[in-house]
Every structure is written in C-alpha cells, then in structure tokens.
C-alpha cells in the first residue's frame, strides 16, 4: 500500500528573512480561475476608462515666431532639436525639452517655404519665395548651449539666388544633393551656385518634393497639375507619373517599407501607394474634413501624423482607413506642418497662430523612466483592452473623442452626402441592365490616369 498526502511546510512557502521578497507560486490551470472571461472583460473596461482618464496629450507650445509657421525640419542626429520657419522669413532651432529657441537664422526676405537638414546634421538648407536658397552651418549642440538662455544668431554659409520662387526643398539621405521644387524640379549640390540637374514637365509648378529613405536616387514630387511624379536621378526624365482629381499637398515615404509612399491630398484624404504600382492606391485614409496640408511618418513605419486645414492633427495607422487619434485645441488654427519626433514619442505641429505645439504620440502614455512592473501592467492593460475592444461598451469608450463643433458638423454633412450618392448609385444600378454601371473602388476612383 502506497500513500502520499499533501503536506506543506511553511518554510518552503514563506520567505526566510524580512529583507527577502515574498515568494510567489504560479499555477496556470484554468480550473482554478472560474469566470475568467468575465473578469478579463471587466479589466478591459477599466483599462479603457483609465486610458481615457490619463489621456493628456498636449505638453506645451513653443512661442516665438511672429508669423504663421510654414515649415519644419527635424535633424535625425539630434533628437532634442527641431527647426522651424515662418512666413516672415524667421528660421529658428528649438530645444524641445525646454521649449525655447536655441539659435536663430535670420536672412530670408519673404516667406520660407522649405526647410531641410542634411543627414549628418551639420547643414541646414532653406528656400523661400524670395527666389533664394540658403545654406546654414548648424552649431554643434553642447551642454552649455542648452542651459544658456541667450540665443545665437547665425549667418548663412551660402546663398544662392535663382530665377523663380521655391516651394519646397528636401535633402538626399546619403549624399550631398538636395532638391528644390519651384517652377521645375532642380537638383543642387552644396558647393555649386547653380542646380546640377533640372527636370521639367509641362508648365505647372512643383509644390512638394521628398527623397526616398531607402534608395538615395529616387524622389517623389507633387505638382499643381494634380499629379504625383516619381523621378530617378540616374535617368533624364520622370520614372512614373499619375494624375489625380485633386492636388497633393505633401508626400511622405514609409521609413520601414521604402517602396510605399503616402500622399496628403487636397480633398481631405491621404492615399498610400506602392511606388512600383501607382495606378491603384493601397489604402485610402479618410477622416479629415478639409485639405490635408502635411504628413510625416513615425520612425517605426507603423503610423503617420497629418495636419490639416481644418485645425486638427490626426494620427493614422499605416494600413488603416481611419485615424486612431485626433488632437485639436481652441487656440490652434490652420495646421501647416507636422513632424513626428525621431524617437516616435512626440508629434510637433506648426500652425497659423505662430505656435509650434508639442503633443504626445500616445495620449495616455506615461513619460519618463517606467519601472518593469509598471511596464508589465501597461502592457497587460493594452493587451486585454485590445482583446475586448470589439464589444460595444468597451468600443464606445475606446472610440470616444471630443471633436470641435465645426469638424463634427462637417463630418455629418459629408456622411449625408456620401450616403445619398451611394443610394443613388445603387438605385441606378438596380434599374439598369446588370453590368452597365460599374462602380470603381475608392482606391482607384480618385486617380484619373497614369502617364508614362
């Protein structure tokens, strides 16, 4: 006869000294945890509510410009700094942590339309409506600089005058070429006073330009004839071109998937394309009510931020049709430029009311150093909320955002208009011979044609 009974001696299950941690034993058997799904659902509900309680995305505003902020540039080597330029020719370098100006770069006579930094962070290129391109030497940031409140005034290291006003500038990722957009697309070298290469197509001006992060010789531009063109510097003419129904204000390449680009369009939508196949959009991101002015991708490649003429900043997932988050303030007027910070934590928006605003990318995130236990708790809350986010009560809380009244009303109007269009289309289809009326999918509807 063999008998064994459970006997637990307390010294195996309790700590030896009071300085030790308490002992914890795990048994993951589901039969010890009745009603676990209900408990998880309650936790998901509480996690959603807590997230809303801690959602305070606005950190601060950077005040200093005297006219609306027209463009911004970030320096990939220096996380704390951001360049911004305004409509009266004032260029500043800001220190984000103290939200103060570190250097000023005066010199432009008119509005500064484009701002970009070279990849090593030493040279800042700016272009404006006064038909000049200026190159500046960015001072090396030292510890003294950030603590001293006096601002430095830097003189330009080079000033190139050209024939027409410029609309945008972008620097190559690996190399020392930069491209300007104006009456035509010009490629410049740092040391030359004249463009090295020029691309022209038709008579319309090019309004934005962006180099590909993966391929140093490929760039995408958008022109005022509602087209998006992809150029290869090694060829003498454009590689691909599509014409859409409305003009594209800005383009951004996905840093993690460099063949994909997203275009911020005048009709309030953002269109993601595969650069190799431009005849159909991969995804249409709809949520803005008015023209989307600027777009920037997060360094993770999973999200992008857009600023729009309707006074709001939205954050979209890279493959999702609707925005995950909207930021707005009564004091923020038309947003002209947005940037996602290089550590994927902050979003900076520059708007018409002369302020740059600093927001958190995740509204309820706890900034600063987080203890491992806190981190685990946050991850658990996130996971359990995502598991039950389809249930109506949780969804209602997670989805809820306060919208400013003009945007809310405009969304209602847009919805009514689209519904009636759709109904009319359905009725037309129902009353005509099958196959005669074909609805184009939304991904193709806004593209007129592809031109070689």
């Amino acid at each position: 006869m063999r008998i064994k009974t459970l006997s637990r001696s307390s010294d195996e299950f309790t700590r030896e000294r009071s300085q030790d941690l308490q002992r914890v034993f795990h048994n993951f058997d589901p039969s010890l945890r009745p009603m676990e799904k209900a408990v998880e659902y309650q936790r998901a509900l509480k996690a959603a509510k807590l997230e809303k309680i801690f959602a305070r995305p606005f950190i601060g505003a950077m005040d200093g410009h005297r006219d609306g902020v027209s463009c911004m540039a970030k320096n990939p080597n220096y996380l704390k700094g951001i360049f911004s330029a305004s409509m009266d020719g004032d260029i500043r370098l800001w220190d984000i942590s103290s939200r103060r100006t570190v250097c000023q770069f005066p010199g432009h006579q008119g509005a500064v339309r484009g701002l970009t930094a070279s990849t090593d962070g030493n040279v800042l290129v700016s272009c404006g409506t006064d038909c000049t391109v200026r190159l500046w030497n960015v001072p090396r940031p030292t510890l003294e600089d950030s603590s001293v409140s006096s601002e430095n005034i830097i003189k330009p290291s080079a000033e190139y005058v050209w024939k027409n006003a410029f609309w945008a500038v972008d620097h190559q990722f690996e190399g020392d070429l930069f491209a300007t957009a104006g009456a035509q697309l010009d490629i410049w070298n740092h040391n030359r006073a004249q463009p090295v290469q020029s691309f022209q197509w038709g008579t319309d001006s090019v309004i934005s330009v962006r180099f590909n992060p993966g391929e140093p010789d490929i760039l995408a531009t958008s022109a005022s004839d509602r087209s998006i063109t992809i150029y290869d510097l090694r060829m003498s003419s454009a590689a691909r071109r599509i014409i859409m129904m409305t003009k594209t204000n800005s383009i951004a390449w996905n840093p993690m998937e460099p063949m994909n680009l997203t275009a911020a369009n005048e009709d309030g939508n953002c269109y993601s394309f595969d650069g190799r196949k431009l005849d159909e959009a991969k995804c249409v991101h709809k949520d803005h009510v008015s023209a989307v002015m600027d777009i920037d991708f997060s360094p993770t490649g999973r999200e992008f931020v857009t600023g729009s003429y309707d006074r709001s900043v939205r954050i979209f997932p890279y493959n999702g049709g609707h925005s995950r988050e909207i930021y707005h303030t009564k004091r923020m007027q038309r947003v002209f430029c947005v940037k996602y910070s290089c550590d994927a934590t902050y979003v900076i928006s520059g708007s018409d009311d002369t302020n740059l605003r600093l927001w958190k990318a995740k509204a309820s995130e706890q900034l600063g150093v987080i203890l491992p236990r806190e981190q685990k708790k946050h991850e658990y809350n996130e996971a359990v909320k995502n598991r039950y986010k389809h249930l109506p009560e949780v969804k209602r809380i997670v989805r809820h955002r306060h919208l400013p009244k003009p945007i809310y009303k405009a969304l209602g109007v847009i919805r009514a208009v689209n519904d009636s269009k759709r109904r009319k289309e359905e009725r037309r289809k129902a009353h005509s011979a099958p196959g005669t009326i074909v609805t184009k999918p939304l991904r193709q509807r806004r593209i007129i044609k592809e031109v070689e």
Partner: protein
Amino acid sequence: MELSSEDNNLTDKVLPPVEQESDVELETKVKKYLRGEGANLETLEDKKLKTHLASREKLYGKSAKAAAKIEKWLLPAEAGYLETDGLEKTWRVKQTDIANEVDLLSSRNQYDIVLPDFGPYRLDFTASGRHMLAGGRKGHIALVDMMSMNLIKEIQVRETVRDVAFLHNEQFFAAAQKKYAYIYGRDGTELHCLKERGPVARLQFLKNHFLLASVNKSGQLHYQDVTYGGMVASIRTGKGRTDVMEVNPYNGVVALGHSGGTVTMWKPTSQAPLVQMQCHPGPVSSVAFHPNGHLMATSGKERKIKIWDLRKFEEIQTIHGFHAKTLSFSQKGLLAAGTGSFVQILGDSSGGSSHNYSRYMNHPMVKGYQIEKLMFRPYEDVIGIGHSMGWSSILIPGSGEPNFDSWVANPFETSKQRREKEVHMLLDKLPPETIMLDPSKIGAMRPSRRKEKPSRGEIEAEKEVAIEAAKSTELKNKTKGRNKPSKRTKKKKEMVENAKRTFPEQGHNTTLKKRRIGEDAAAELPTSLKRFARKN
C-alpha cells in the same frame, strides 16, 4: 519508392516510446490550456482580418504550449494518492492505517473535536483553506486558523444558528440566526443585521460577484451585494421551503433542491429559473457541484445518488445504496457522501470525459455522531466533517489540488498580501448580469436568432410587474367635488384591467383543431375498446 517508405517507418521507430508517450501527455495538457477550439478562419473573406486572426491563433498555441511545459516541469508539488496492491481494496484502508504511513504534519490533520452541548455543526472554509468557520445550531460560532490550529475567535450568539458562511476573506462572516441573518467581523463584533431577508435557512457567498445569496424559510431567494449593501434581487421561487442550496463555482448560478424532487437554477437578473430539472421522485436531500462546472451530484430520499452532466442535462450515473444527507466535491473530483455517522468517498476511476464514480474510501464514525455537513478543505488532502457532537477532520489522499497560485488563493498570506488582494478582488468585481449558464459566452458572437416567444413564466412575471405598476400609480387629486372615492376605485380597477389585457390569455395561442366527434371519441378510448368506436 518502397525503400523510402521503409526508411520512414524506421525513423518513426527510432523515437523512444517514452518520448512518444510524453508527447501525447503534453498534447492533452496543451488542450486544457487552449480552452476550446480555435476559430474557423476559412469562412472569412476579409484578408486583413484573416491574417490578423491567424497570427493571434498562433500566439495562443505558443502560450498554451508554454503553460503545458510549465505544468510539467516547474510545479513544486504533486498530488497525493492511495494505491493498494493485490487483493487489498482502497475502501478497506482505515484512517489509523493512513496515520501510520504518513508524516507527522499530515497526521495532525486527523482529529475529532467533541463539543456535545451546542448541536450539529455546519462548516465553511475560506478559498485558501486556511481558516475555518464552524457554527453550532445552539449558537456557538468559532473561527479557527487551520494551519496553527489556533482558535481566533469564538462567540455564543444565544440563538439558533442555521448556517454560517465566510464572505470574501476571513475578516468577515455571515451567520443565519433565528430571525435574521447577521454579518460579523473577525473579532466577533456584529456589523450588520440583514433584516430584509427574513429567517434564513441557508447562506452562500459568490466570490467573484461579492453577492451573498440566501434562501429563507418561505422559499425566497435573496441576493445582496456586500460591497455597498444593496439588495440586487429578491426572487420568489414559488416552490416552498427548501434547505438545499449550492452555488456552482464555475458559473455562479445558485441551485436549489426542492421537496418535489426538482432542482432549479437561478440567476439574480431573472425572476424565472434558468433551468428546472426533475432529478428524484422524492425530495432532494443535497446538491453538489464539481469545480469544472460540468458535473452535478444530487441525492434523494430514495437512497440514490445521481451524477448529472450539466452540458446536456442528462444523467450519467446512479449510485444506489444509501441516503446521502450531504454531498461535497473536492478540487480533484472526489465525491464525499455523508449519511448518519458514515462517510463514503467516491472516486472517478476513469479519467477524461466519461465519469465512473466508484468506492474509494470509507470512514465510519462513532455511532452517536449525526453528520450535518461535509466539506473538503481546499488545497489540502483533508475533509472537514461537521456533526452533532462537534467537528472532525480526516485525511483523504488525492483530494486536494497540490499547487496553489499565489494570486488566486494563498494559504501562506501575510496581512499585507491579504489587504492588497482585497483591493484587487474589488477592482475585479463582476456585475450580477454576468452570471449565466455558460460563462465562456462573454466576448463571443451571439448567433442571430428570430424573435422567440417569451416563455410562460416570463410572461407571468412581466404581467405581475405591469399589474404592480398599475396599482401603484398615483391618481391626480381632483378638486371641486370630482374626487369621489367610488370614482377613484373605479378608475384604479380600470387601469389594472388594462394592464392585464395587454397580456393575452395563454389558451388563445394554441390553435384549436377542428376534430370530428367520432375521431375524438376514438382517441379517448383504451386500445382494447377501439373497435367499438363509431366509424364514419
């Protein structure tokens, strides 16, 4: 081609048979942790959703495998067992034999506490098995720490005590006394007197919902939330007085056993029972639930114990022999039945889905002891017996869960851990609407069904509610001689009639078939006389 197939056969045989067996074992464990079947992704048309769900299913598989491996290698203790060899049978093993074989710490768990003056004792254990509450019928209530065998507090309430129950931890307990139920703190101070319930016969506490459920002498079921004291539901069962009440730990439904042999299951949000099962021809003596929620054991006065499968509501097994006054399931699935002064433990001889309960152990007690309540102690191989001369405890190897989880129930809790656990339990408190027969339905898709007609019980309940509402509406106070009492009563009667009229008579729904007189008569006649029925 034939050579290659032979090669394959050889490679199969190369794996040692022990490895193969452990793979099979691991498979069964993984199944337990997977908690059901994966979703069928073939029917989905949305590609994004399909890929997303496929990656999620893979993650579930990985985590189930990891949990199975942890169970295999990392758990500190193994379950107890009692194995006999040869002709010896397990039920012939006495407690004295066990005491000889087992270590000192375990043999301390075998004892008899004789308290002859205070009547039959009812027991309750906390979830971790560390504290025990014993309530004698003549008013003696004792709170004992089982690990140190320390009497924490004993009080004499000088009234009949019909049942005792712990609340969420050992700091609070409830006692059903002569006229009302009372809630006491750990040091014996009376905290609350629950007057609304009337004279309570049985008390049960639902841990996840913080609901104190009780059934009183007139058969009314009350649910009260102990966190804020509000009465969540008071349900008139309509089946008369009953002494048999158990909570199913798997889904939180309360089962009552009635004198007509039916077992009804209740949830606080409905006035009609969830399930009504006719279990026995005579009164039901006792009901017990298996911790996995699928098995229910009931015993009736006709000396049968029946084991039911709650998924199909079918009887699996009947055990003949004795009238079990009290039944209890252990964490590992052993069933204890107590009658008179005799305790019998039945064990599940076949594992898996088919259940076959057979004799495992016996314990005859001193002839004078009448067993009042049996309860297995959680996480220990011990059963507590409350009887007319006090309480006892005996060893049953293999009945307790060997490995506890500190976050679920910790027998070695410090006071700081207890306080934190209380806060976490309150944060995770479930609303009473989550009590349902199948708790895994939460988060699942509800199949769309056509509008079903409400059942008769529900219609009756709704009708009663409407009539109550009509009766309690306040009539406007009319002036200038228009407020005659006769007119007021007439108006009130009219309102009640209107409320009743909205519910059509039950009889009208069934379509009356027009039958010929001859056919009617033929149907009513017994078979031997059918040839004399008039034929048309």
